[in-house]
């Protein structure tokens, strides 16, 4: 009897019911600031499946990698040897600088060091299904020490920021996402700028930057841009990318241009998450 009643409801009324539920969910979600309990459902149902699929994908990648030809390997070996030589000379030079830096730091009583944050490695297990946003899911969460607004790296470059944390997963918004804004700094001159993710530049593999002061400091193509000291959520001194184009704006007060990011966002498989957030770092000092 009950089932007959359910079937007799007209589709028009079902539509209204479903829309009402949808609107209700939107309301709850905006009131609770994205912490609706329903969201936790997926982390126990869908996420394990996504993890499985991406593990298979990673395994297949390994499989195809191990069948590279000998010639390719030799060539790569040669390349890498050259690189080692280059890096060794560079390392020596940097070591000398390091000694000098330490001495100067002692003089200035700047004992803080930004270089060794504690990090957690995580695997990317799913990407946003739509073509409009560039956020992705990683397989570590609050149980592994990841917090909201934690900085995410891959290799040596900045990837993005954690926007949402569940117990065993977290969502990361990458810096190429349209909603992303990062306060950057030209490494050589310490001038700050804003690195703004843009969907329209995504296919060119570039990120625009803007609001760089148009002063006497010359910014050349290839210079490094790192996260700045004034950013409220990104830790300082993390490489974002290299300047690939710089122009003076029409107002003659600022400069803008494009960055080639240090990370290849199309092949992101593993990332590193820094477990200390900038907020904690700045608060603990007070």
């Amino acid at each position, binding site marked *: 009897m009950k089932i007959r009643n359910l079937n007799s409801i007209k589709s028009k009324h*079902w539509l209204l019911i479903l829309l009402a539920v949808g609107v209700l969910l939107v309301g709850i979600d905006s009131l609770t600031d994205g912490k609706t309990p329903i969201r936790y459902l*997926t982390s126990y149902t869908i996420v394990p*499946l*996504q993890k499985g699929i991406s593990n298979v994908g990673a395994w297949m990648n390994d499989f195809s990698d191990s069948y590279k030809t000998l010639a390719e390997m030799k060539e790569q070996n040669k390349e890498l040897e050259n690189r080692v030589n280059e890096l060794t000379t560079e390392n020596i030079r940097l070591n000398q600088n390091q000694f000098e830096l330490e001495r100067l730091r002692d003089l200035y009583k700047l004992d803080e060091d930004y270089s060794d944050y504690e990090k957690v490695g995580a695997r990317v297990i*799913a990407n946003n299904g739509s073509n409009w946003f560039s956020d992705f899911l990683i397989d570590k969460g609050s149980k592994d020490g990841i917090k909201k607004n934690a900085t995410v790296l891959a290799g040596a470059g900045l990837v993005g920021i954690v926007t949402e944390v569940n117990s065993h997963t977290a969502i990361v918004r990458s810096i190429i996402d349209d909603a992303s804004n990062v306060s950057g700094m030209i490494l050589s001159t310490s001038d700050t700028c804003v690195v703004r993710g843009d969907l329209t530049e995504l296919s060119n593999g570039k990120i625009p930057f803007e609001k760089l002061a148009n002063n006497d400091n010359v910014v050349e193509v290839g210079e490094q841009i790192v996260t700045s000291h004034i950013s409220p959520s990104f830790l300082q001194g993390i490489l974002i990318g290299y300047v690939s184009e710089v122009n003076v704006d029409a107002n003659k007060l600022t400069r803008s241009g494009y960055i080639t990011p240090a990370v290849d966002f199309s092949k992101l498989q593993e990332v590193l998450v820094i477990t200390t957030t900038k907020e904690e770092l700045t608060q603990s000092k007070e």
Partner: protein
Amino acid sequence: MKRKIITGIIIVLCFLLQTTVFDALSFSHIKPNLLIIVTASFGFMRGKKSGMFVGFICGLLSDMAFGNILGFDGIIFTLIGYGNGFFHRIFFDDDIKLPLALIGISDFLYGVVVYLTAFLLQGDFRFPYYLLHVILPELVYTIVITLVLYQIILYINKKLTKEEQRSASKFV
């Protein structure tokens, strides 16, 4: 009951494929929208009611995994499923043109709504760019995938319908 379980499996499978496998198969950052294909085809294959329930679940799933606002995609997909239900009356199994057109239109509308809500409201007026570089490529890729995925969904639906008719006739 069997139909409900199989429909659920189709939805979850498509969602999983979209978030994992198709990310690797994307052409210049564009991937197809499998959930639109599922929602729209259930709409015109089974009618308004099925369409909007499938749409609601698909939308909620994509909301829960990533969506910025929970329930937003749910509403859009519900409406898409319901709208496709209107074409149930003129739908025939062996005609592929109507499904292709309907899925194409659904995907286009979805793209436009996302642009209006997530980009235009933030003062981003570059619609022609998004149309040419996101919405239309996605539409083309989605239609290409439709040619395969739709046949599978249609086949499953045919089989289920046949089975239901058989078991119904047993009771008569």
